[in-house]
Every structure is written in C-alpha cells, then in structure tokens.
C-alpha cells in the first residue's frame, strides 16, 4: 500500500510549502534521514509533522496579535542494542542532519541499555478509515478571514452578557502526520484543530469568567458564541464577591476544572512508564485496586469523535483504541506501548515508543444536570468554574496538592436557587480523596483542553460533585 493512499496530499494541503513541492521535499528529507539512521540503528522510527497553525490573541476586547506557524518537524526514535534516543529535529539543513545523526551514533555507543524498551509493534495493522473523517474538517483550512469574525462573535457574546472587557485566544489549524519505521510500517493522517478560550472581566477586575470551546470540526462541539456567553455570565455573577470562609465544603466543578483535579490520575499516573518507574501517586497500586467512587469510570480513547488527540495510530503505528482505565472505581489497566505491555497482552495504542502518552481522557457521565447537582448536595457547597496553578507537595501517594479557583466561584445557597460569589479560597486535597469523594456526575461530556493545565491532553468531562474538600484562605 502506498503510504499516501489514505488521503491525497492535495486534498489536505497544509500550506507549509507549495503543494506541488510537498511530495518531493518530504520524500527527499525522509529518505535522507532514513538512509543515515538505518546505518546506525537496529530499530528506528521517523515521524514527520507538518503544521500550519494560527492563533489570534485578544485582550481589552481588541486583537493584540495574529500569528501563523509553519513547521516541518521530524521526531526520531533511534535504537541500537536497546540503547535508545528520542530527538526532535526541525533544523532541516543537511549538515545539521548529518551532525545530529553522527552525534546520536556516539550517544548510542556510549549509552546504557534502556530496560523499558524491548521492541516496536510488528504489525501489520488495519486502520479504521472512519477516524480520519472525525478529525479533519476542510472548513477549518479555509477559515482565513472568518477567524477574526469568529473572535468578534465570541467577544460580542461576552459583552452582551455584561462583560466590561474580554481577553482570550483562538487557535486553529491543521497538521499532517506521516510515519515510517524500521519494521516496515507506514501511516499517514491529517487533523484539524480548534481551541477558543475566552475570559470575561467585569469593571470589578476580580469578577471574571472563563469558557472554552474546542473540537476538530467547526460544526461539532465548537461554539464561540456559547463560550462568550458563558464567560460573560460567570463574570457578571461574580461581581461583588467577598472573601470566603475557610473550612470543609462539597465542590461542584465545571468540566474544565477536571483537567486540574481529576484527569491527572488517568492521564499521568496511569501511564505504565510512570507507574513502573515509581514516579506518580499510584505507585504500589495495581489492577483490581479501588481508587475511585464506583460511579466513576475513565477511559483513554484515541478514537473519540472530534477529540483533539484522536488519530488512526500511535507512534508505533499501532491503531489507537478505547481503553478502560478505571472501571466503576477499580483500576482495570494502565495505558502502555508495546514494550511496556505485560506479557501476553498487546499495546493499548499509547506509544510514545519509550514513554507512553495519553490520548483523550474520557470520564463517565451520570444522571444530573448542573442544577440537580446543586440541589442534591447536602453540605455547604461551592460551585467552582475554573482553577489553576495546581501544585503538589509530592508526587508520591496520595499526591497532596493545592489548586487555586481562578474565575467565578460561588457559595451555593437554597440548593442552587441562589449563588453568592466568593473569592480567595484555595482547594487543598489529594487525588485519592477527590476520586473517592466524587459522588455524582453530570449528564453531558464537554471536551476541554486548557492552557498550561496539569493534564496536558484533551479531557472529556461532565460536571462533578466532589464531597468534603478543605478550602483555605490567606491569613494576612
């Protein structure tokens, strides 16, 4: 099968260089690199990433800068006698490639055996052709001038809800990824991406609201106006907030908050590499152990419709799949690659060849609307719309942390009939506690992928009710 047969390059022009030049340019570069790494390695993989990405950044309701990035990048995995190197290469001058390969040759001679690397998957594999359709939208490619209009629509929606000023960013673009390896496997896909983040500010600069909209498709789960409205509404509700009282609360978190509080366990700690090396808070826990409330199940799903990390295959060209990580509170498996898969098991399709990577983290849903979650919460309850700056005292169990609610935070009164804005409260907890104390879930999933979040991958999460969280505040 020709490695370009899944989709024609012309159809998915990435704009890195002229379409007519792409085939020759990439083929020549890949051949050049392949010939050199083949001479020094037993196993190798060459992943080619062509990016055409754009960002519109805005603040004070005006566009500050519009950016475009074009890049051809190679991610190389090199191995000789199980000594391994991962290297990113975007300096594509032949002399740099030669020098880099020569340097890697020395490193491979001097390095020690990587006991976490055994092999790459052998294949051959069949890829689900329908995945490509779920991650590529031609309309994103031709957004161009309309991107500014979308930004304006989002800004206006926030202002219509009472925002005094608005800041945010709109990322959009496409990537074309091709991969070959020493096993003889080849693959290719293209993906579009959209990520709109908007933060609304009242005249009271401490009253803010933030909302996110992200997808691979303009018409599936992507709505800048809804985001603008949500941000504007939260900031309006947050006006006049007072310093909250420290103590124990139930918290109801927006989907976005899960990227900080809930997703780090399935996205970081349930990585087979992290687990094996003892680098995270699930050290000592194994399949069959209960770590979460029975209402909570979590998947890593590289095939999720419109997921920003969805793709046909991973870095070993193993088909991506949906893997149940936590089954009704119980650890079912850790995501892995071929080398870290347990004997007799196959890879979960999460390579990184040396270190596995999460794809989309998917939480289970429940039966409750946001209003119902507020209604059923029995104890003093805070509605938390966003949080940031999560920091750990230690990655060792139970991963004690604190995290700062950033935008509108509300004391739920009369079972949700009234929301009283509060400020200056800090979440103090740990991942074990929060997973176990997750008592009820919202009905709908929302895809969130936020700026500098603890779990860097896309997360599909519902609203969640978590009980008994200690909130602290400053003493001066």
């Amino acid at each position, binding site marked *: 099968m020709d490695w370009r047969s899944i989709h024609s390059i012309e159809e998915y022009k990435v704009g890195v260089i002229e379409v007519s030049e792409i085939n020759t340019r990439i083929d020549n570069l890949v051949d050049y690199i392949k010939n050199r790494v083949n001479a020094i390695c037993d196993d190798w993989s060459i992943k080619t990433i062509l990016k055409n990405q754009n960002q519109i950044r805005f*603040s004070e309701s005006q566009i500050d*800068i519009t*950016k475009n990035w074009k890049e051809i990048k190679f991610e190389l995995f090199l191995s000789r006698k199980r000594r391994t190197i991962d290297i990113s290469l975007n300096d594509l001058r032949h002399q740099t490639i030669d020098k880099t390969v020569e340097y890697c040759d020395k490193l491979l001679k001097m390095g020690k055996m990587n006991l976490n690397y055994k092999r790459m998957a052998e294949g051959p594999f069949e890829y689900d052709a329908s995945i490509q359709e779920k991650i590529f939208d031609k309309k994103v490619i031709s957004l161009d001038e309309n991107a500014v209009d979308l930004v*304006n629509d989002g800004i206006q929606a926030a202002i219509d809800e009472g925002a005094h000023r608005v800041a945010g*960013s709109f990322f959009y673009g496409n990537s074309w990824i091709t991969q070959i390896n020493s096993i003889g496997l080849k693959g290719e896909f293209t993906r579009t991406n959209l990520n709109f983040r908007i933060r609304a500010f009242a005249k009271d600069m*401490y009253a803010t609201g933030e909302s996110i909209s992200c997808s691979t498709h303009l018409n599936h789960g992507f709505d800048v106006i809804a985001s603008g409205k949500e941000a504007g509404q939260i900031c309006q509700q947050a006006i006049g907030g007072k310093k909250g009282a420290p103590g124990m609360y139930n918290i109801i978190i927006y989907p976005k908050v899960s990227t900080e509080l809930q997703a780090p366990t399935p996205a970081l700690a349930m990585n087979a590499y992290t687990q094996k090396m003892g680098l995270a808070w699930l050290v000592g826990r194994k399949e069959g152990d209960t770590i979460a409330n029975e209402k909570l199940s979590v998947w890593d799903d590289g095939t999720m419709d419109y997921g920003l990390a969805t793709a046909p295959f991973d870095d070993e060209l193993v088909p991506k799949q949906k893997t149940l990580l936590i089954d009704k509170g119980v650890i079912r498996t850790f995501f892995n690659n071929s080398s870290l898969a347990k004997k007799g098991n196959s890879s979960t399709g999460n390579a990184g060849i040396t270190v596995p990577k999460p794809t989309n983290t998917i939480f289970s849903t429940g039966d409750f609307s946001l209003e119902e979650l507020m209604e059923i919460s029995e104890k003093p309850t805070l509605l938390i719309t966003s949080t940031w700056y999560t920091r750990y005292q230690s990655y060792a169990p139970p991963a004690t942390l604190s995290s700062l609610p950033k935008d509108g935070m509300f004391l739920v009164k009369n079972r949700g009939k009234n929301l009283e804005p509060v400020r200056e409260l800090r979440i103090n907890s740990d991942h074990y506690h929060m997973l176990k104390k997750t008592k009820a879930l919202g009905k709908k999933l929302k895809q969130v992928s936020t700026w500098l979040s603890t779990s860097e991958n896309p997360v599909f999460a519902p609203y969640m009710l978590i009980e008994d969280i200690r909130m602290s505040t*400053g*003493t001066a």
Partner: protein
Amino acid sequence: MNEIEEIVEFGLNYAQSNGKQCEYVEIRSEVNDIDTVALINGKLHIGNLPLELTADAFARKSGFNVRIIANGGMGMASNNQVTKNSIMNSIDQAYRIAKRSGDQRKNPIKMSDEPTYEVSWQSSYKINPMDVTLEEKIDFLQEFVEIFKQNRPIEYIHIFVLMSEQRDTFFINSEGSRIRGQIPRVAFTPVIIGIKSGGKNEQSMQTYATSSGWDQLVSWNLREKVEKTVNNLAEIIVNAKAPPEGKIDLILGPNVAGIIAHENCGHPHEADRILGREGAQAGESYLREYEIGYKIGNECVNVFDDPTIPGSYGYYLYDDEGVKARKRELIKDGIFNEMLLNRESAAQFNTHSNAAARAVAYDREPLIRMANTYFAPGDFSLEEMIEDIKLGILMNSFTEWNIDDKRLQSKYVGQEAYLIKDGKLTDTFILKPTLEISSPGLFGSIDAQGKSSTLDWQGAFCGKSEPGQGCRVWTGGPFIRLRNIRLG
C-alpha cells in the same frame, strides 16, 4: 554573514519594498540545540521526560520569526524552512494578518522609540556544556546516584536531569538594529522523593543553572548540597514537629525569598499583565489598580530584576526586541517603582522599554519576562535576625506553592524549616509550615533583609504565554525576616 543571516536580510528588504506600508518590521532567526540526559532511579534516559520535567528535551531547532505592525495591528509568522521563498511567504502573511488585526482595533499598536544597535554579545564561559561528552555528563549524574547506596532510614525515588542548550540568535529590524547573540546554558535539576514505609513522604526539587559554562556548574559542590537535601528529607519525615500556633516571626532563606521575589513582585510588575494583555493566559496584576509610587511594603523592601548579572541563568545583554538590557528596580524602598516593559507596553505608558522582551525560541512571540529577580541585600546577619525572635521559624526551602492570577494571594509550604526559640536557632525540624498570605501583607511584614554575603540564587523555568514559554530565570535573595505571621 552566514546563509541564514543573508536570508533574514533579504526578508527585511522584501518587507520594506513591494508597496507594503509596514510601520515596523523585525525578523529574528535562531539556531537552538538542546540536549537532556537524565538518570531516573539510576536508569539512563535520553529524550523527553514525563511529568512536566522537560518537553522537547533533546532537539535541534532553527527557523525565523517575522513580526510586522501595519494598519495599527500586529502580525507574526514563523517558519523553519529558511529560504527566500518561505521568508517572502511569511512576510506576506504577517503583513496581511497585521492589517486585518488592525481593522479590528480601536487603538493602534505602536512601539516605543529606542536607540538602534549593531552589536554582538555572548555570555562568558570556558567550557560550553554542549561540548561536554555524554560520558562526562553521565559520570556527573552518577555521582548523585551514589548517595543512595548508603543505608538510609527511608526509601527514595530520585531523578537527576541535566539540560544543556545553545541559543544563537540574529535580530534585525526596520529601524536599523543588527544584533547577534550567543548563549549556552546548563541546568541541573535533582528531584528527590523520600518515602517512609507507611507512606509518609517529602519531595524536593531544585534547579542549579548557569550561563557561565560547564565549569561553573561543576564548581558548585552540588554533591554536598544534594546529600544535605537527602538527609534533610529523612529528618523531616521522621522527626519534624508541628508548627507553633499563633503569631510568630519567620525568617525565609534565599531559596524562599527568591520564589517570593519572582511570584509576588516580578510577575505583578509585568506591564502586559497590568495592561490586561495576559488576561486569559498568565493573568493580570493587582497593581492594575495602582500607579507608580504606590506603597507596596515596608521601607526596607527592595526587589530588583537584572538580566546583566554575569553567569546568571536569565542572562542577556540585548532583549529580543533589540533593546539594551539594564537592571530594573521594581520595588524600591517599599514603593512600586518600575514595571517590566517591552516596546509595546512602553509606548502605551509613554516611556521607554527596559528590555524585558524575551522569547524562548524562534517560533515564539517576545513577551515581557523576568530575568534574575531578587530581594536586594540589607544590613543584617542571620544571627542578628534570629537573636530577637522569641518564637519563630527559619524556612530554608519550600515545596508546594501557588499564587492567584492577580498575584495577590500566595501560598508557600516550607520544607527544610527549623524552630527558633528565645533568640536561638534550634535543630528541631518543623513540618510543612504554611505561609498563606497576600502580596501587600507579605511585603508589609518584612522588617529585615540579610547582608549581601547571604545572597544566593536558584534556577527556574518561568511559565507564561500561550503557547507556553518556559523562560530561563534566576530567583534569589538574602535571608529576609517577616514579623507577626500567622501560619495557615
């Protein structure tokens, strides 16, 4: 002039011709090499690491970045294909998107007036860390692994990361500046988690970093420092006592003073935060509501930021907008004295840039960043600070910390902390003393800063912007004393 520089010059000529009405053009090119070697529990790892330790840890990057102001809007385009065709395409694109952005703006973007320079600069070093062999780097790291071969009362997880890099830059702009920069950096980050059976644990993470070469790093007697940390973690886990209740006095060591200088002073003094430009990213600043001259803290408080400190991790002599670097006196005698400014924000304040614009790579926008932020030394020896404390704590290092996006409400959890009683420093470890305090509350509690002989630094990677830019900085200070603090 090398091939990349010729293409960059060609690009500038192209941008200034062909009928384009550019108000400002700059082009930066960079060649950036990064090597990261790590020993994770003694096992060698070359490449990217999990758990936010490093990304693009082993990379060879080069490319250019064009910024254009046209029609009052700003456009940026970057490409790693350094050819005449690609630079023309990028300039056309940056010009087009700048004009389109300008249509949407009420207030046109301007740059402050600044002198132009034709100059080359570099940091001073003997041994470029990029020239050090892998064997030597592994030997360096292995020395720290040896620490754990002794019998110890607790178990340890240990990660030693060594990141070496070289950044060669060429900057030109439409005003006539031509600036070449060259800086190698090296950073050593030990992450050590001590765990007692039963699960009680403590984690330490430090960064020792320099732009003065490999020889500088290895001269710091790091083995002794790491070994002390290893011993301290065991002491803390096994023997530390609960902090005293009520109001106490608190002495913060250089490590803690440094992070406070960075988080509670440096960040809120960034003009882009004050103007709201980072509102949806790194946040704003509580100083947005105040003018220069606002009293932030006690008169003894001085916090400065200086990119020109030789050997520092945040060292540079010209920023990424071509402005000559100088020391910035952010808090002077307790007063909000100066912001960190780039050319765009300086124009808005009708003043000049103080050279705070930095980009971490060719494909990143230069933004207002700190360099080396520190509490200026005062007149006190540590002994003098301790002698009139009836009940207090000396906090030498910290673990968990965070601060809100206005840089007003902060939290620092102490790690290596000792009880001070009746004017004497005891050897009693205090478990996790927690300072949870506002920035004015903190600066208003300081009554003494240590002598310059106690000034010390640590390396750090400061996160800001979107896409994120982990900017190399130093944080530092002498010992500082806070009075009448109620711990959280």
